[in-house]
């Protein structure tokens, strides 16, 4: 019975995961900000480390700038057909201060996620949130309402990091004549 396999036996999902791994590592390679870790339970697990500016609220309640975040991305085996971003993502950095990130649960809201969205697209969406290039200004569907009100009052501070995730390639080699 034909089961949508490639001639080497790969399923469409395996082929997809292989591509995400290659593209994700290529993005990290061309970024000064992103590092992509592939834990032992790979292939469907990735931990993205962002060396970017963002905000946390510490135990004393003070909002301060930090420059390192870790977020896990997991692809379930039916990801090409249905996707629940909350099941896939986990914020490992505690205390992230953002309307789209829960204050005490490891949850981040990147908005609607269409099945089959690439790892690279997800990594960009997470980056935009961590650096306040994007945030949800509506309290009623925010994961952190307090941060949401705070963000509206402090819009002049955003984004806290405006660098693009991918290094702009400037090829300034001087050619010897």
């Amino acid at each position, binding site marked *: 019975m*034909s089961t*949508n396999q490639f001639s080497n036996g790969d399923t469409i999902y395996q082929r997809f995961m292989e591509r995400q791994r290659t593209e994700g590592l290529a993005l990290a390679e061309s970024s000064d900000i992103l590092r992509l870790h592939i834990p032992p339970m790979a292939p469907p697990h990735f931990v993205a480390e962002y060396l970017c500016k963002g905000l946390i609220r510490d135990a004393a309640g003070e909002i301060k700038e930090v420059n390192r975040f870790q977020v896990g991305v*997991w692809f379930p085996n039916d990801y090409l057909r*249905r996707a629940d971003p909350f099941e896939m993502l986990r914020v490992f950095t505690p205390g992230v201060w953002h309307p789209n990130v829960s204050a005490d649960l490891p949850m981040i809201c990147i908005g*609607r996620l*269409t099945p*089959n969205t690439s790892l690279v697209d997800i990594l960009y969406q997470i980056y935009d949130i961590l650096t306040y290039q994007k945030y*949800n200004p509506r309290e009623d569907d925010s994961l952190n309402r307090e941060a949401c009100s705070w963000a509206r009052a402090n819009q002049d501070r955003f984004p806290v990091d405006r660098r693009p995730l991918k290094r702009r390639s400037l090829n300034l080699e001087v050619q010897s004549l």
Partner: protein
Amino acid sequence: MKKKTLVVAGAGGNTGSHLLPHLARMSQVERITLVDPDVYDEGNVAVQNIDRMDIGKPKVVAQSDKLRKIDPNLDVTALQERIEDVPRGLLRCDLLVSCLDSRVARQHANEIAWRLNTPWIDCGILGSQNLARVNLYPTAPDAPCLECAWGPDDYSLIEQEYLCGAGSKAAFPSMASSALGALAASMMALETAKLFSGELTEPIAAQQVVFDARNHIVRTSTSRRNPWCRFDHRTWAVRPWRCKPESTTVGAALKALGSVRIEGHRFVLDLICPACHRQERSLRLNRPLARCSACGRRMASAGFGSLENLNQKTAGEYADLTLAQIGLRDGDIVSSGKCEHRLLEAA
């Protein structure tokens, strides 16, 4: 003639409620399993085949009472839950009939029909244009499935509940008239009768019939297997495995089967409550997850850490829990190893 068994998903809705009496009157039908999570409310009386006495009753309960009045000998089972949450073994039948109102539920019905190697009839109605549609999906090895005809846009329209409410696309009522639901129901009943009488001899092509009641046009089309379909079209060979989920431990199951997977679900290790923010570490099947013991909101996965498969390495520390404690039920079909599928049956 061999008597037939049927599963009707979305049994109490606009089309389902009109379809059931037709099915109960077919002499070939011996058993009908009704699946629908909803309860009748005021608004349903306007378009569904019920009366005011049914308001407040679970749809499957109200409908099974009606079916028993039509045929007291009919074997009727009522399951008040979403089709994707029902143990797959309870859905084995000669024909799966679905009258569903969401893309995600249809996607699950499609998957279940293939796994159980059951022919499937789906329907849909579009009130704004007075369209009634019936789709026939036979089980031939190279037959197309629902998703064979889907493109990226179809997948992006799949309803998904978001914990932060970000653009949730819940299914909304079709606002179709009772007459249109009854039309789709009659078309389905006729196809069912043809299938059972042997008039449709296999292999039959996958067919779609659309009745455009506004312009009096009938359109039929056939579809073909899409080699790039995102669904794998695998079917199961199910073998019984006698055990009681209440007394069999995870450890014993792993010893007997090697690994345990319940397709369509995952095992969650870190549970969180989106309402009161309580966190809990335990092993549970997301069928969906149980309610929070503190506030009653349904628990969610903390993300990233769910397991598709249990094996000695991943579930060792939970070996003493029973299968019932981690969320398995009688009738669940356990996939273990590469292609073995076993049915949990009470001893």
